């Protein structure tokens, strides 16, 4: 049975339809990549899956339950973790405290139970040296890492990553890929929106293409990348 299932999901902002009758399934443990031009509705799709936005039509099932009308906090507790494309740190908390909030509330555990786990995630994401710095003072790159680290701290079954590789150096990108691969092998289901295609294709085994809110391709990454629609769309952004 699939862990995530969207059926005919739609969302409009006024007259602008941003998610247009989207349906797809994700199997447990799978890594799915999402690509598409800016404004295609990728981030909106994430917001619909996490409940930060409510869909206008369609149904969303997660882990065997209908979550279409469930608020974001409960979706997190049931195992959906996310990063934001534009980092949204808790500015006045330290990096470590950002993770503590996520781990205690996202997993319903006590601070003591999650301390070591948070420390381990900070090491894994190379943020241990700024653990006690207020998150509001971080540079963009560290903010992006914090997004990943905080999402990991909720111990998700399904992890949604929104453009976390942009602007990284090659070495940093390799490290990031290793971290995500590690999560993937440990059994976490991953959906990753990314413009850095080589990073994406080195992890995911399926690729979904979104354009004007519609799914225009879904399948094996190599086939998708070589399809005519994708070449047409990506000629515009890649060059």
């Amino acid at each position: 049975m699939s862990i995530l299932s969207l059926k005919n999901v739609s969302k409009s902002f006024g007259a602008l339809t941003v998610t247009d009758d989207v349906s797809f399934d994700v199997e447990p443990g799978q890594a799915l990549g999402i690509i598409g031009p800016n404004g295609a509705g990728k981030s909106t799709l994430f917001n619909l899956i996490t409940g930060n936005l409510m869909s206008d039509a369609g149904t969303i099932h997660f882990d065997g339950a209908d979550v279409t009308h469930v608020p974001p906090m409960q979706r997190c507790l049931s195992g959906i973790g996310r990063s934001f494309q534009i980092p949204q740190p808790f500015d006045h908390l330290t990096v470590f405290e950002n993770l503590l909030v996520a781990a205690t509330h996202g997993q319903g555990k006590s601070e003591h139970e999650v301390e070591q786990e948070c420390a381990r995630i900070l090491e894994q994401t190379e943020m241990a040296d700024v653990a006690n710095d207020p998150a509001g003072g971080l540079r963009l790159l560290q903010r992006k890492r914090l997004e990943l680290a905080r999402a990991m701290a909720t111990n998700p079954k399904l992890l949604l990553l929104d453009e976390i590789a942009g602007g990284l150096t090659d070495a940093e990108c390799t490290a990031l890929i290793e971290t995500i691969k590690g999560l993937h092998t440990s059994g976490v289901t991953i959906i990753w929106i990314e413009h850095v295609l080589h990073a994406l294709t080195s992890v995911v085994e399926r690729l979904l293409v979104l354009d004007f809110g519609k799914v225009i391709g879904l399948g094996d990454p190599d086939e998708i990348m070589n399809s005519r629609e994708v070449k047409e769309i990506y000629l515009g952004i890649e060059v």
Partner: protein
Amino acid sequence: MSETSLYRVQTQTRASYSAGAVCIALIIVFILLPAFAGRGLIQDLFFIFTMLVLAQFWNLLAGYGGLVSVGQQAFVGMGAYAMFGGVILWGMDPVPAILLGGVAALIVAIPTAFFAFRLQGAYFAIGTWVIAEVMRLLVAQWKVLGGGTGTSLPRTATREMWATEWIQTTFDVRSAAARDILTYWLALALVIMTIAGIYWLLRTKRGLALAAVRDNVEAAKSVGVDAVRMKWLVYLVSAAGTGLTGALIYVQKVRISPDAAFSVTDWTAYVIFIVVIGGIGTIEGPILGVLIFFILQSLLADYGSWYLMVLGLIGIAVMLFAPRGLWGLISEKTGLQLFPVRRRLVVNAQSKTED
């Protein structure tokens, strides 16, 4: 666990241990003070303590919960009037009737929250003020409690008030002075419980959630924080605390009127001033703020409207040049934290040498 942990979490600072010791010493001095101090000092301290409690609760609401209310006088007034109701209508002793003030404020806070939480930012502020005005007008219709002109606690009730006889004989004072000592002790107890309670809350995982909601609601929800529940929690807790304080203030004042008990200047404007100049979002801030406020008031009280203007100018200057208040400046310069809530991740020295 067999493996030794590489990290541990530290929440105390050296300053906080000293602060704890100073606090305990101060509390002992304050408890014993009525034996030495004159009535004037006891009254001044009562004023400082009660304003500090109001400031701590407004700070919890605005500084931690992000709910900027200008209607806290609603709860001061309701608390005070509920206490009067208990005494005059049911013949209760004023001291237990103070608890009635807290309960009444809590009860009116529930329906008003449903209304106020639909409003955001400035609209929330205005909404809370409107609610307070409506309550003032309603209470002014309550003829048994003096209507618009107000009333006083019955003489029998104040003279036979709980514990005053014992205070009279022990300290050899008259009944009015004994009442001042009693309310002073109650205010002291309220300050201690308020600060200890808020400090405890901030050090639990709810405190972390509160800070997360204040900083970024959407992100907080996405990491499993129940943002709505946190809002309710701080709103109801500060309403109940403010109601208790209002009731206590009017046990000491003895005379009440709707205009005084629901005064936006006395119970909200001054309180905001205290929190803003002291430092919003910290426990230390309101403590420093209330001392500055008291000194300014003692110096300038004779100058009437000039006094209010000076307060306003100081408030604006602090907001412009020290947005985190005077305590913010101090702790930035010195790193001092008397009530630390930070969870610091530190490397265990022991496991480091084992590596």
